[in-house]
């Protein structure tokens, strides 16, 4: 038995061409309509411990040119093998070097460790894929306004600390620099582009 024999990494898309296009469409639509929950109507392989919708997001968005940062609790050998095998994406040398970031809501770093892009190249701002415990909560805690939202939409904290939401709210001041964020749970996802303005309380 050879020691080199690799264990095959977890599966990716079952039908890469069709599924990556559908996943991309969902990511695009949800970013265009911030706050609206979108359902991914198919499953894809993943290494476990990650929402299928975020796994599909990684498979769709990551490639050789997108350094990926795996947040605390998600940086496992199985995840690394899976990501490298299916996307060829390099692991970022630090959170600030990442184009794409996978995070768990329970173990979030401060948002200022990620690249916000520059005024010349705001598109270099990172895209965060955040795994959250729930997208539906009874209590609305903040209000989102901006392109893609008719008037405003009341949103729950989705399992993230309010302090973190306040950090995100402050980033509106540096627009067009900023972060684009996806919140995923199971097969459901919400998009939060950098153009969305967040206010708290009775606003």
């Amino acid at each position: 038995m050879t020691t080199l024999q690799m264990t095959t990494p977890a599966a990716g898309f079952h039908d890469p061409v069709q599924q990556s296009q559908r996943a991309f469409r969902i990511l695009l639509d949800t970013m265009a309509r911030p706050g609206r929950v979108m359902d991914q109507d198919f499953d894809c392989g993943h290494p476990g411990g990650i929402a299928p919708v975020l796994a599909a997001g990684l498979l769709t968005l990551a490639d050789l040119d997108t350094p990926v940062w795996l947040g605390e609790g998600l940086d496992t050998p199985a995840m690394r093998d899976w990501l490298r095998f299916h996307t060829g994406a390099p692991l970022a040398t630090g959170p600030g070097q990442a184009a794409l970031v996978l995070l768990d809501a329970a173990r979030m770093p401060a948002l200022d460790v990620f690249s916000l892009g520059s005024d010349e190249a705001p598109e270099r701002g990172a895209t965060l894929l955040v795994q959250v415990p729930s997208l539906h909560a009874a209590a609305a805690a903040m209000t989102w306004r901006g392109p893609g939202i008719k008037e405003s939409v009341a949103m729950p904290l989705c399992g993230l600390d309010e302090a973190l939401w306040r950090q995100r709210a402050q980033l509106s001041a540096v627009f067009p620099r900023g972060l684009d964020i996806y919140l995923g749970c199971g097969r459901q996802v919400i998009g939060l582009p950098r153009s969305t303005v967040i206010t708290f309380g009775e606003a």
Partner: protein
Amino acid sequence: MYVAVKGGEAAIGNAHALLAEDRRGDTAVPELSVDQIREQFSLAVDRVMTEGSVYDPELAALALKQARGDQVEAIFLLRAYRTTLPRLAVSLPIDTAKMQVSRRISSCFKDLPGGQLLGPTFDYTHRLLDFTLLAGGAPPRTEARGELAPDLPQVVDLLNAEGLIEPEIPDADDAPVGDLTREPLMFPAGREVRLQNLARADEGYLLALGYSTQRGYAKSHPFVGEIRSGDVAVEVEIPELGFAVDIADITVTECQMINQFTGSKSEKPKFTRGYGLAFGYAERKAMAMSLVDRSLRAQELGEDITAPSQDAEFVLYHADNVEASGFVQHLKLPHHVDFQSELTLVRTMRAEIEAASAPVAEFEEAAQ
């Protein structure tokens, strides 16, 4: 007013059909196959691969066939095709010292280890048209004798050993390598970005710029340290495995140009270097590239920038023949509205001048 116009659909369709017919030429003459172009017009194929920036002899031959032999058009076709493909991996740097050479010469040393290997060169031909080819003559038998030295050291490394030439310094393994296919050209451009730009650059343009350096527009006093053509292995880190595998051999031509440099108070005099590298057998291109590479190092080497070939913005912005041809040829597109506005402007200006000079004319008439 901006008027949208539509039309010409039938004309365009018929123009394309006529183009296809003319491309084929006289049907009484047998059609060229892509294989024939690849094998017998191999230097045209090499140029299309180099400037199209995709190594694939079959695709380059197909592009030449489709473009009726127009090199820049064929390069454009190949560049367009490459945009449809995903990037699978990046190779480890090719090792030209380990080349299986087909040609290797130096103009600096007569007796170099391994010898002067002329290979399949046009040099020493008399540039007389060979009418036996017109009659379909067979090529002469090639001689095969002896063996090549197992190691053919780079000539510049011999000078290196004595410290007489500046060494090339490898960058750190994790240093970013600029890539013009990913990021736009920005200034100041690093040497790696300049070399990528020059490798894709139009051969005629580089030839003219390189020639200008020899004629005195930027002094570099070049010698051919070494030219070598042949096959090198391409090693690719396989993402699925995590280690590198040598997956193919590609043919390349390399030119190491040695240039004079007078030292400074702090540095003893030593030779400086320029580098040229191209896909296939592309000696003229590699030589011209090495001259321009050296010329573009003027600032780094503390030389006065006095000539076009030393001006990085000028050289690099105009080197790409797909961009250049696109911008020049876009002038053929309808500029009806732009031109109408210019026409109106010129008429108005003339009318104003005529109006201003009219009273004088009346006065003159009155005086008479």
